[in-house]
């Protein structure tokens, strides 16, 4: 087992210090001379026609610079999900300001003023008249033949029908199935709930050059959408990634950049737009609600014969990423389990509801929640232990994912299952009776898979980076990095440091800026460590080669006899002094006219699975329906932890979100299409008191070709959590709740229903 000096360990980066002393400036902390503040005016109707806009009273408020609406804006529509100019699967259906708002929260107008207070006051004074139109709030209703059309072209946005395997197979052994199981699972709209609200700052200088400062996940994507909308050449729009207070996908689509850039262009001044929490919940994006019906056949030996899934997903008012998101759901299970036959049909529908967008896991948590609840039903029908059922069907290293034809790589999910089950004491705990008093105990598990990059998805899977060594031996990394808070900058530093044997804190790494950092697709698809980390490793190796080669010339020695250690080049056989990097750089400049700078483009060529198996213990109060999560254990197939502390930190946050989605998080919608939830007062998340102890076990088998064997963790860690919790609650209570979240109301209702139709005793309300 290789010994590492930096890989695996934590270190303190300058930006971390700036986060603890309040010095780091996030987007809302920026101030530019003459900066104006913007406030959006949002539709109170789920569907309406704007019949009149009178800005007179608003314009009369001191400090107001302008009021803008569809009368002023380009008529061209755009897709908030677009990154590539000619990206397949992008529907340009969103206007800058709606003349026919399509959901409660749709942008109708914007006010710009010298202070945020004046802008907010003026926004309330813009007199807008609406003629309400019929609103369709569920995908089932919107797909009825007589439903009102929400967008031209009808309410069915996209469909898919994927199938692999032998459709005649009922189970792999050829016998007729022992069980046929059907489950329907519903997951609600969720709020990403990054602590930092959505924001954007934009400026338009005297030459018409636009600059956008945004906590986004792709500066090049933001540039595409903004430049195309405003009709500007790409090199006249500069997008700068500013430090971000979390995203979890909520800031990956271009929600505020187009309107803020437009306002800057109109006013010729810097414009800062910061949303409040209510606007973030209702008017940015939600994880889309979906329902999936699963039908499977399983042999008596527990092997899955066929799995047939029908998914219906609500995109909300604009298509955004929903078509791709829904289809992504269909690609998450065949890299996790072996099926005789797998078929997945999906439909995506418009509704007059909040716009759906990608959330951490990008469909994997959604479908894993469905599938893992379903598999517990299968296990129950077979009378088989749920862990054993998984064990008989999980993929093995080197399996081919039949949907993509690609290898799942060194898939160590079975190791995760075995290791986790043992550490969690599954066999012992699952055999314990739940009890028949007020508190019932139960355990549950779930498995999940995710990926490492966007290879084979019609997206550019490459990253170009430059690494430069200064005359004092310090380094500058120039790459389009988008730090979301997970530690990407530190990961890249660690990888480079390990290759060159220098202090990772001596590497200066800026974030993405279209004016100066080379092209990178963005922070999506769990590609940062696996692809960008691999790019950084090759980059560092090239610089190492240059340093060693130059040292060889300086020393009059052969390069093959030299190595690097402690920031210097040494003779392998131990003779002589080391030549410090700083010396090499200085002498190379003067003697050879050579700069210690390398630029490299790395192209990703594989996309293995990352895997997580999670176990949860719960205690349910049958009187109130409240659930206490007693403990969670996560076993993650990560290949190699580049920074163990950050990996565990990512698991903590991922599990907090997964638990919340199982028990208490939901963006609801009333009959008028308004979300009742409007803040953290009623969007409930697990806090420090609620959170259970979490144990993280890492399986580091180093069998894939990521940097130092690393695979992704940030998304996969949230994939199985919700299902593990739901399975634990249902096991504790003997219920079959399949609509999330399992709120106290839903639990009590299920218990009352159960006692009305007893299969086992339960306390009733």
């Amino acid at each position, binding site marked *: 087992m290789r010994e590492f000096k930096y890989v695996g360990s*934590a270190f*303190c980066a300058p930006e*971390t*210090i*700036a*986060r*603890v*002393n*309040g*010095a*780091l*400036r*996030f987007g*809302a*902390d920026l*101030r530019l001379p003459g900066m104006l503040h913007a406030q959006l005016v949002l539709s109170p109707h789920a569907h309406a026609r704007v019949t009149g806009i009178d800005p007179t009273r608003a314009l009369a408020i001191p400090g107001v610079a302008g009021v803008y609406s569809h009368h002023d804006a380009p008529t061209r529509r755009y897709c908030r999900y677009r990154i590539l100019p000619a990206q397949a699967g992008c529907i340009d259906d969103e206007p800058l300001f709606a003349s026919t708002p399509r959901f409660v929260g749709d942008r109708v107008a914007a006010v710009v003023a010298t202070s945020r207070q004046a802008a907010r006051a003026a926004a309330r004074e813009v007199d807008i008249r609406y003629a309400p139109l019929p609103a369709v709030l569920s995908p089932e209703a919107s797909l009825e033949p007589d439903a009102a059309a929400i967008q031209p072209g009808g309410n069915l946005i996209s469909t898919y029908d994927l199938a692999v395997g032998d459709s005649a197979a009922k189970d792999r052994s050829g016998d007729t199935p022992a069980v046929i199981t059907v489950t329907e699972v519903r997951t609600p709209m969720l709020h990403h*709930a*990054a*602590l*930092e*609200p959505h924001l954007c700052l934009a400026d338009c200088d005297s030459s018409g050059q636009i600059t956008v400062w945004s906590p986004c996940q792709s500066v090049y994507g933001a540039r595409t959408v903004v430049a195309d909308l405003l009709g500007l050449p790409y090199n006249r729009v500069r997008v700068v990634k500013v*430090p*971000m*207070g*979390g995203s*979890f996908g909520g800031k990956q689509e271009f929600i505020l950049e187009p309107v803020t850039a437009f306002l800057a262009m109109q006013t010729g001044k810097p414009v800062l737009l910061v949303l*409040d*929490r209510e606007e973030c919940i209702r008017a940015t994006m939600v994880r889309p609600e979906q329902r999936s019906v699963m039908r499977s056949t399983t042999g008596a030996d527990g092997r899955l014969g066929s799995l047939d899934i029908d998914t219906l997903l609500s995109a909300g008012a604009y298509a955004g990423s929903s078509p791709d998101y829904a289809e992504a759901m269909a690609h998450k299970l065949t890299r996790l389990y072996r099926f005789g036959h797998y078929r997945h049909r999906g439909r995506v529908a418009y509704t007059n509801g909040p716009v759906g967008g990608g959330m951490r896991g990008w469909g994997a948590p959604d479908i894993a929640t469905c599938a893992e609840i379903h598999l517990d039903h299968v296990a129950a029908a077979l009378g088989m232990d749920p862990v054993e059922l998984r064990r008989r069907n999980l993929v093995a290293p080197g399996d081919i994912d039949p949907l993509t034809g690609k290898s799942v790589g060194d898939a160590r999910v079975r190791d995760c299952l075995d290791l986790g089950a043992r550490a969690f004491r599954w066999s012992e705990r699952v055999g314990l009776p739940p009890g028949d008093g007020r508190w019932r105990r139960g355990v549950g598990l779930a498995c999940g898979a995710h990926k490492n990059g966007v290879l084979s998805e019609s997206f550019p899977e490459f990253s170009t980076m430059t690494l430069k060594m200064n005359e004092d031996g310090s380094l500058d990394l120039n790459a389009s990095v988008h730090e*979301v*808070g*997970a*530690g990407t900058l530190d990961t890249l530093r660690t990888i480079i440091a390990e290759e060159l044997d220098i202090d990772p804190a001596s590497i200066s790494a800026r974030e993405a800026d279209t004016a100066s950092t080379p092209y990178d697709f963005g922070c999506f698809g769990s590609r940062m460590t696996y692809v960008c980390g691999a790019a950084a490793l090759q980059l560092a190796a090239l610089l190492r080669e240059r340093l060693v080669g130059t040292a060889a010339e300086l020393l009059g020695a052969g390069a093959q006899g030299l190595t690097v250690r402690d920031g210097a080049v040494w003779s392998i056989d131990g003779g002589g002094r080391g030549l410090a990097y700083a010396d090499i750089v200085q002498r190379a400049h003067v003697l050879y006219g050579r700069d210690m700078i390398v630029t490299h483009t790395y192209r990703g060529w594989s996309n293995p699975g990352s895997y997580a198996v999670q176990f949860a213990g719960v205690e349910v109060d049958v009187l109130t329906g409240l659930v206490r999560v007693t403990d969670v254990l996560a076993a993650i197939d990560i290949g190699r932890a580049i920074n163990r*502390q*950050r990996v*565990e*930190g*990512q*698991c*903590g*946050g*991922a*599990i*907090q*979100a997964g638990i919340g989605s199982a028990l208490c998080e939901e963006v609801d919608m009333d009959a008028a299409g308004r979300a009742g939830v409007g*803040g*953290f*007062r009623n969007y409930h*998340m697990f*806090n*420090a*008191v609620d*959170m259970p*102890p*979490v144990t993280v076990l890492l399986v580091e088998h180093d069998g894939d070709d990521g940097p130092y064997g690393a695979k992704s963790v940030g998304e996969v860690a949230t994939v199985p959590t919700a299902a593990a919790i739901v399975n634990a609650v249902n096991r504790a209570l003997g219920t079959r709740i399949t609509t999330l979240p399992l709120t106290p109301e839903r639990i009590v209702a299920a218990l009352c229903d159960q006692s009305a139709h007893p299969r086992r005793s339960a306390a009733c309300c």
Partner: protein
Amino acid sequence: MLLKTTVNGRRLQVRIEADTRLIDVLRDSLGLTGTKEGCGEGECGACTVLIDGVPMNSCLVLAAQAGGRSVLTVEGLGSPGEPGVLQRQFVAHGAVQCGFCTPGMLMSATALLARNRNPSEAQIRQALAGNLCRCTGYAAIVAAVAAAARELAGP
């Protein structure tokens, strides 16, 4: 109106309106942007500051209420150029990811350690109950506070 208050040990006079929030005075008038606004309704704790040692959501405090009082923000922790014990332990324990909740967490923890030199884990979690975090799952933050308590208590 004129607000007379002390912020991070400095006595100040600031022009405010009757409805100016303390968070806006800190961030806009004084340029102390370390205090963050996450929700504007006192639920997330990102705006936590200490007023006469008591942790409060500055988004819910009228600036005028700070008149004659002493306000401590994250910028007032430690000494210039030298992070304090809590800050160093946050860094050492990986308690900082995106960093947006961090100032509020530090302020709540500062208040806790001032009134309780040897808090249990449950007491730490209770003290942080009003500070939401979406990145860390809280464990590293709790461990950092416990370590800071031990360090402050001395050998």
